């Protein structure tokens, strides 16, 4: 049975195109033009995943409202924000509301969208499976469970978004090597600005420091990129 993706997007052209892209990958897409239509259906039947625009017709932050309502209905459903609103504050708000990822709209991210959706479904699937040794990368106190997209630092789990996970993975796959901004974007299946990369890295560091205030393993390489420092 194909997985159901709910797409809430007020722009008709985009909605049609996204639907087409995702349907081509074999997903069932239920698309909605505004928040009220969507929530009406969600209350009867939950989709497997929700892709939300933030600005919905007259509601400037309709996506955020919808995300909150959806989280009340289900704590585990993957939610992605796909929006033209590309700024730190929006990204922070979205992720704080329980979204799994936040994608700025551009043509590159559109291409990456199926990959991202697939990865998220895999994460959902693998969450129930036991971690296997072969898929684990261990660098110092860091353990990365690739299949489950789970990261442990000093044996404590970190709650990373998909983009953040991919960025961290890129750094720790070859510890000590500098990853440029472009390389990191490639690895994270996204096209964002250098500043946005910096923001992601900052957020990753913050999450590490919640566990370990002394965390200092992700190094900036004179602003040209980042590397995972091996002790």
């Amino acid at each position: 049975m194909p997985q159901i993706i709910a797409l809430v997007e007020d722009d008709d052209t985009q909605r049609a195109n996204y639907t087409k892209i995702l349907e081509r990958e074999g997903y069932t897409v239920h698309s909605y033009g505004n928040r009220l239509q969507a929530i009406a259906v969600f209350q009867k039947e939950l989709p497997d995943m929700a892709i939300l625009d933030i600005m919905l017709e007259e509601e400037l932050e309709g996506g955020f409202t919808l995300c909150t309502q959806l989280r009340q209905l289900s704590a585990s459903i993957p939610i992605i924000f796909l929006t033209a609103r590309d700024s730190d504050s929006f990204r922070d708000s979205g992720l704080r509301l329980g979204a799994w990822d936040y994608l700025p709209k551009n043509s590159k991210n559109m291409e990456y969208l199926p990959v991202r959706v697939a990865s998220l479904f895999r994460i959902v699937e693998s969450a129930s499976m036991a971690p296997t040794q072969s898929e684990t990368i261990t660098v110092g106190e860091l353990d990365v469970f690739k299949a489950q997209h789970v990261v442990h630092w000093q044996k404590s789990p970190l709650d990373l978004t998909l983009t953040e996970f991919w960025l961290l993975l890129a750094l720790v796959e070859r510890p000590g090597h500098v990853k440029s901004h472009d390389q990191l974007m490639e690895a994270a299946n996204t096209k964002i600005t250098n500043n946005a990369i910096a923001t992601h890295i900052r957020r990753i560091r913050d999450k590490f420091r919640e566990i370990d205030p002394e965390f200092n393993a992700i190094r900036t390489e004179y602003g040209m990129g980042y590397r995972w420092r091996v002790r």
Partner: protein
Amino acid sequence: MRFSFSKISLRTKLFFISLILLVIPVVGFQLSEQIKRDLLQSEEQSLLFFARSVAAVLASQPEILNRERLHPDVSSAVYMLRLHHPIRLNAKLDDWPEIDSMAEMLAAEHLLSGSQEYDFQSFHALHMTGERDKYIYAFFKVTDDTIVYRGANSLWMDRSDHLQVHIEDSNGVLRQYQISPRQPGWVNGYLYDDFGPATIERNIQGVWKESGDGYIVEIRLPREMIGNKLAFALVDVDDENSREIKYIVDTSKKHKNSKNNYKNNDFKNIKNINTIQDPGWIISPSTTIQSILKTLERPNFRILIIDANSRIRATAGVLSGASLEEKRPAKGILRVSQYLGKLLAPLYRIFTKPFSEDTINNPAPLSSFSLDGVKKALTGENSFGRYMHTSGKKGDPVELMVATAPLKNGKTIVGAVAVEQTTSSIVAMQNRVIEETITVAIFLFIFGGGALFLFAFYLSARIRKISRDAASAITSSGQICPITPMSSGDEIGELSCTLANMLNQLKSQTDFREKMADNLEHEIRTPLIGISSSLKNLARELEKQPVDVRRYIEWSLTSVARLEALLSDIRDATTLQEMLDGDQKEIFSLNKAMEVWLTHHWREAFIDTTFVYEPVSQEILFYGDPLRILQLLDKLVENAVSFHFPKTPVVIGLKKKEKSISLFVSNNGPVIPEKLQGQIFNSMVSSRSKGSGKDDKPHLGLGLFIVRTIAQEYGGSVRVESMPEKSQITFLVELPINCSDE
């Protein structure tokens, strides 16, 4: 350097203008002079009037004038000075008052007879008569080349140098006494008798003493011996053998033209007259007239009655230099001005005239000036004059005003009335006017000028504030800081408001332009995504596309990608401030970073461009986000690369200064128009001409805006330097050192 008034500050100008207040004392000074002149003139009139009225009062009582023998022809009179101090008979004249002015010279004019032509050097005498306590005193200071005394056994009283005293007693009997000593010393008078030997009169006694050039006789005789007439005669004998009388001078009569007579060798005519026939009247200051004058007396005036022989016959009044007004107790502002007056006393002294407050001795002698007036009066003229008088007690000169009027008895001028007054009160008034003017001027200057100066200071400060505000409203990198308009509603306040409004409008325009970028980005992105997603779907739908179609789709997607890059740039710029707030700052070596960036970033990104960089050996540490500094330099390098002339290098540099780090990127290229130099750091301003974009990079004029924003975030600044002669443009970023080397 040429002096120009327009270059002086407003404050200084107003200060100079306030100096005009200093004219006030000058005007006051002139005014006081005018007042003084007018006062003197009116005083002159009143003084003359006073003199004439005194003359009129006296003229109305001819019997008094007659009794006091005020006639023009009493020239032979002996003037009896009233002596206020005792006289010691010692042939010393220091106890006689006012010899200089009062003593009479017995010389040619008084020559009664002579056997030879009169020789002043050979014989003359100074003489004075006075009265005190029932005695009459007289002295004769005789200058005589040869003193001949009476022979030791001679009974002849009149064959030697001797003094004759002619008296008419109260019964009208004439007597002659002779003082003819045998040697100097105590002497007595001898009553002369034509027919018998002289008898001694002990009531007439005196001292005969030789002096260097003659002898001095000082005698005393009781007043009661004499009626109303008295005369003295001095007889000179120079030849001891012949004992011939050489000259006789007397007090009785002025023998006019006698000199001429002798010149004609005709002195024998008068040789016979060797004795006085009629002694002159005794005249003395008149108590009667004095008492009349007392009734006319006014304070601060002195009235003198002078007879035809210029002798003072009566005086009244005291001349005092003290000003008439009493000192009032000062109140309020007057007290302040009095206090100020004390402070300013040295200043007053420069402008005011000193005057003596001396009281002039009474009676005072006549000065030569008064004598002139008296002479005029005797010819029937009124006169007025001023002279300095130095006989005050303190010796300070006192200025006196004198008005003289003729004194008439019937139609005959018998003397003169002189009224004197010191000018002290007028000078005092003038001084007071000057002092008050100075005080007022200084008050005005201090308060008025002070107020003016403060106002000027206030105005100037406000104008300066506006000027400062205006100057700092637009920073060197083109940022606009609105100013707070002044609250006052005057012209300067309005100017300030206008300026503030202008700046606010300018700022809102700039803000709008910056915001417009943000809005535009969002509005364009949405349809663009529609286009790109449609194109991608289209490409997927047409699995087996013809080559042409695939190419068109690729081109379209390339264009979309370029548009998206452009939008990303805008996003970078518009969200920059937000990004800066989240910067991950760390201490890093700026010089090492520069080398890394140059090698791995710019040289790789711009393969065709030559970069020149002088490595810095010294470690330069900086606390900041390397990404941000790289972004800043990236924009400058991109800018330099896109503007540099082909085959010229782009020079990158780093310098550590005392308090700051200086980063610069310099290239040879077209010079930035001067009017753009302050603006190019603003958002969406570019000096790039249209169509010059050969490369495929979008240019929105955001790069330098980013540079400015980052530099300011780090407390630094950015500026551009153009050197048109070398076609060189240098962008300089100054960042403060924010971490020490340790």
